């Protein structure tokens, strides 16, 4: 993933997304995903 070879590790992360609808369909999307925690769980970035 993103250049990181598979680690076999199990990860659990959070995300918040906002989707704006126009004429019955999603037209805009904003999202924040806790990528930092995922990288720490993968062992790519040191935990705090």
């Amino acid at each position, binding site marked *: 993933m*993103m250049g990181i070879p598979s680690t076999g590790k199990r990860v659990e992360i*959070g995300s*918040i997304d*906002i989707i704006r609808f126009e004429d019955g369909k999603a037209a805009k999307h904003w999202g*924040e995903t806790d*990528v*930092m925690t995922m*990288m720490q769980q993968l062992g790519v970035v040191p935990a*705090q």
Partner: protein
Amino acid sequence: MSTEQLKSAAKRFIEQGFNQKNLSAVEEYFSADLVDHALPPTLPPGREGRKMFYAAFLSAFPDMHVHIDDLLAEGDKIVARWSAHGTHKGELMGIPPTGKQVNVTGIAIDRFENGKSVEHWEVFDQMGLMQQLGVIPAA
């Protein structure tokens, strides 16, 4: 509280707490019984940890400014999509000041009871922040 009151409370909190750097806004906005789902495990739980978390960022980025990009409220919950900018002038979580200007975005959700937030969720672009500070290589 009405949804309009929730929005006013969130706007006041961000204006006072971050833009005027008055952290007494934390006690005004959050209940003493706050359950905080977004704190790093190194901080004490609840409101005390939330205040320490904000204090750490304000001392690292003394010129920090937070802008509310979107504010949504329904029932007893409020969602704030925000963006912040500031200059890294003080130590942050062990990172010495870099003098770098950073831009960060995040989304926060609060659940209110009796006029204060009792539950807080938040995700912000911590990875992007660390990349802008040069601590983590950019993807």
